């Protein structure tokens, strides 16, 4: 965060403005210094360094800004493209005139400086210099003649005293400052004469003077002296001197000549100096101008970047805000940075997003409410025992609840969106239901109710189905909702109740007169047996016996009906099914015509929850029915199978009797458990009905079917007990189970 704020600060306007001000001041000071100004002349290099450093820093700042912009452009940051375009335009607008002005200024400076040095002035100065030198040459030759004359006189003088006097005389006559004799190596040979007070040693000739003399030439040169004057140094060899002696004279130029010479020298030197400094001056100006131009360019570039960013920022924000709204973020609010047209635009955007957000919130709330309602309805439908399905007008399945799956014993999820024709084809057992629905929809009936019977392996299923046309739905046409209930149990219960009523009536209406009939028959036999003709006794005896036997038979029948009609009172407990089967078969093992039994028992079969007496009765009924069915079958065999299975999240025990007999007649399969339905001549038809009633009361199921290879299959499904052992009498279960064998 700190790095980011530091970077923002460095890229912000503060440092750049401060730097620009410093550089502008430095540039302002640089201009006079470039002209050799005395005021800032000593700081020229320092100012150049400050300017170069500033330009480098500005360059880095501008480069960073541009690089940042390019990076944002590549990253697709909104607004960066526009900013870059603005910066480019501003850069062109700034740089083009700047470059033109720069090259014009450089050219102008160069030409301007060159124009200072007029050719005529230079020529005039050269001529003046030549003239001055010529004038001095005249003096020089005059003095040289005087010195040559003096040398001859010195050569003729032998005595030391005379020589001293001569030297003074010659100096005074010639107007010399100094006259002296020197050896050929420059050593001073006294006496000498000097007009300057305090001069102890005369100014000796240097090697160039001596060299000239040695070559046999005379030496005469104008020399500048400290203080600005001019003097003439003349040296000649003293004739006939051996070794060679040199007479040197220093002659001061007349004051007027000296002043004119100094003035000429000064003017010439200044002109030459300026001429020499012309090119360095140009370089200095060009450097200064380049520095200022570069700095101006960078400052302009940076200002361009800064202003572009400032201008484009609201547009970038707007673009980002628009994108956010497109992405579904309706809470976007943009900062209003100005009160101009862009500010008004941003405020309008904010108002728009506020309104959209409010609408969206309301929409979300209503959608949430609808979802809650839908969830509520779905929960109700899910927990409804009735099956509910909805279809589109074209017969496509839209929704269904779990009860539909349960009743139709399928998973309708896989058929969602499927048409009724597809459902009919895929679910043949439910064909009557879907065919009925298709017909009603085809006839555009607004409402209907119908009973539909389905046949499945589980047996006959009676459905009460109601359909209603839904109100017109937008774009989906009219739909239908179908509600159906499995009324099989209800109908069966009603039938059972009817049978029970019949049984009770039979028991009441028939059983009551049976005993008087039987007693009357016995009394008739007893009273008239001895009174009638012996020949007729046989007939009487047969008739009365028949009456008594039929009455007994009717009593048994009535008792059976009575038992069926009586309410069942069960005492459920944990029972070992294997042991129970073994016990029941033990009772029948001495009977003739018993089929052989094959056992396929599941080891560790859980106990069942059942009534012991009722279960024994059920097993008896099934075993007797099996025996009767297999009476005339050679190698009759019944396979007894047990296993456990989880049905509807509850552990059950399944008991199967599978025989190799003729099986059930197909027509009777549906009603095999109905009262008074039997395949036997002597049966009451109540055994299986009572068994089913008992099993139902125990929470189980019983069904009958024919095996794939023929033969009857009776399947009993009972609840498994959670207790291991419930009754003490089952202590020897393990031993008993070992008993049953093929």
């Amino acid at each position, binding site marked *: 965060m700190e790095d980011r704020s530091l970077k923002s600060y460095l890229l912000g306007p503060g440092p750049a403005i401060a730097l620009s001000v410093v550089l502008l001041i430095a540039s302002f000071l640089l201009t006079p210094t*470039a002209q050799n100004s005395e005021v800032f*002349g000593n700081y020229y290099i320092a100012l150049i360094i400050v300017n170069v450093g500033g330009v480098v820093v500005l360059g880095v700042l501008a480069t960073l800004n541009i690089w940042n912009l390019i990076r944002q452009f590549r990253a697709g940051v909104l607004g960066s493209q526009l900013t870059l375009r603005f910066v480019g335009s501003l850069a062109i607008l700034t740089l083009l005139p700047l470059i033109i002005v720069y090259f014009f200024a450089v050219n102008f400076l160069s030409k301007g400086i060159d124009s200072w040095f007029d050719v005529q002035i230079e020529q005039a100065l050269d001529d003046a*210099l030549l003239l001055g030198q010529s004038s*001095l040459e005249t003096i020089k030759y005059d003095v040289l003649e005087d010195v040559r004359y003096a040398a001859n006189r010195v050569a003729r003088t032998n005595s030391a005293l005379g020589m001293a006097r001569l030297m003074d005389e010659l100096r005074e006559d010639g107007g010399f400052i100094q006259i002296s004799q020197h050896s050929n190596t420059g050593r001073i040979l006294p006496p000498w004469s000097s007009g300057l007070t305090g001069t102890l040693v005369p100014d000796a000739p240097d090697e160039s003077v001596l060299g000239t003399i040695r070559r046999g030439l005379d030496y005469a040169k104008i020399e*500048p002296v400290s203080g600005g004057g001019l003097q003439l140094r003349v040296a000649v060899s003293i004739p006939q001197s051996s070794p060679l002696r040199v007479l040197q004279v220093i002659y001061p130029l007349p004051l007027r000549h000296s002043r004119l010479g100094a003035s000429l020298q000064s003017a010439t030197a200044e002109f030459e*100096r300026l001429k020499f400094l012309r090119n*360095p001056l140009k370089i200095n100006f060009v*450097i200064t101008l380049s520095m200022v131009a570069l700095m101006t360019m960078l400052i302009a570039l940076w200002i361009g970047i800064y202003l572009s960013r400032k201008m484009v920022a609201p547009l970038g924000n707007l673009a980002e805000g628009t994108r956010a709204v497109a992405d579904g973020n309706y809470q976007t609010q943009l900062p209003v940075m100005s009160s101009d047209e862009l500010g008004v635009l941003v405020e309008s955007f904010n108002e728009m997003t506020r309104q959209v957000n409010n609408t969206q919130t309301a929409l979300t709330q209503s959608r949430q409410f609808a979802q809650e309602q839908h969830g509520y309805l779905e929960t109700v439908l899910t927990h409804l025992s009735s099956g509910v399905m909805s279809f589109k007008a074209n017969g496509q399945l839209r929704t269904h609840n779990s009860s539909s799956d349960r009743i139709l014993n399928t998973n309708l999820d896989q058929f969602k969106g499927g048409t009724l024709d597809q459902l009919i084809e895929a679910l043949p057992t439910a064909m009557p239901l879907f065919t009925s629905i298709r017909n009603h929809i085809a006839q555009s009936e607004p409402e209907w109710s119908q009973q539909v019977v389905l046949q499945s392996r589980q047996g006959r299923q009676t459905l009460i189905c109601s359909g209603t046309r839904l109100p017109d739905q937008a774009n989906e046409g009219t739909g239908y909702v179908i509600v159906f209930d499995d009324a099989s149990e209800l109908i069966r219960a009603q039938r059972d109740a009817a049978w029970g009523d019949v049984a009770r009536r039979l028991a009441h209406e028939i059983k009551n007169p049976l005993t008087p009939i039987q007693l009357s028959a016995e009394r008739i036999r007893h009273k008239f047996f001895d009174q009638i003709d012996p020949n007729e006794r046989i007939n009487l005896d047969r008739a009365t016996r028949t009456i008594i036997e039929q009455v007994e038979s009717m009593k048994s029948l009535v008792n059976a009906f009575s038992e069926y009609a009586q309410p069942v009172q069960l005492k459920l407990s944990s029972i070992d099914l294997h042991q129970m089967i073994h016990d029941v078969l033990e009772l029948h093992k001495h009977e003739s015509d018993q089929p052989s039994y094959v056992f396929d028992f599941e080891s560790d079969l859980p106990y069942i929850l059942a009534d012991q007496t009722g279960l024994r009765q059920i097993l008896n009924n099934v075993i007797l029915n099996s025996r009767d069915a297999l009476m005339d079958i050679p190698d009759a065999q019944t396979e007894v199978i047990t296993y456990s299975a989880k049905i509807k999240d509850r552990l059950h025990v399944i008991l199967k009797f599978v025989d190799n007999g003729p099986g059930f007649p197909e027509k009777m399969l549906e009603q095999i458990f109905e009262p008074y339905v039997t395949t036997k001549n002597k049966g009451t038809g109540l055994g299986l009905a009572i068994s089913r009633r008992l099993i139902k009361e125990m929470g189980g199921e019983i069904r009958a079917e024919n095996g794939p290879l023929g033969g009857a299959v009776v399947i009993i499904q009972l609840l498994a007990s959670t207790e291991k052992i419930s009754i003490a009498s089952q202590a020897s279960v393990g031993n008993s189970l070992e008993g049953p064998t093929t």
Partner: protein
Amino acid sequence: MLLSLLWLGPQIAHADFSVLSGNANIDQGSIRINAELDLALGKDPSEALLSGIPLMLIVHAEIYKLRTKLWKHKIQSWEYPYLLNYHQLSGRFSIEDQLTGEMRTYGTLVDALNVLSVVHISEKMAIPIANDEHLYARLKVQLDKSNLPQPLNLISIFFRDWRNATDWHRWKIAH
């Protein structure tokens, strides 16, 4: 621009100053340093001189005691500035001793530089110095660029032709 100047610098042939030989000794409390120099001005400084721009040559001399290899203790130092000038009217080169004000003129630049090439320094020591094998005298000569006209300041930094200076040359002081 500055880079181009830096690039141009080495391309131009230039003459430089160097110390050819020398010695130093102390006698009766006075230090004597004798040195022979090779002084040659490059094209630009020579042209500047002929254009009337005086050049200041400074001879630096120093006596120091070497304490360690890196630490030397300066005992005394001297500077001898000489102003080299050209007189257009007479066509002579002059050397003016800035300490004494004495001026000599020479017919050629070479003569003038030859005079400056022979250095004889004789100075009375401010404090007496004992005989010490770690006592050294050193000397260098340089063209003083601070006295140049302003337009030459920047150029004299970047152009090698203007970089006229010897390194420090040291001699063990003999007693």
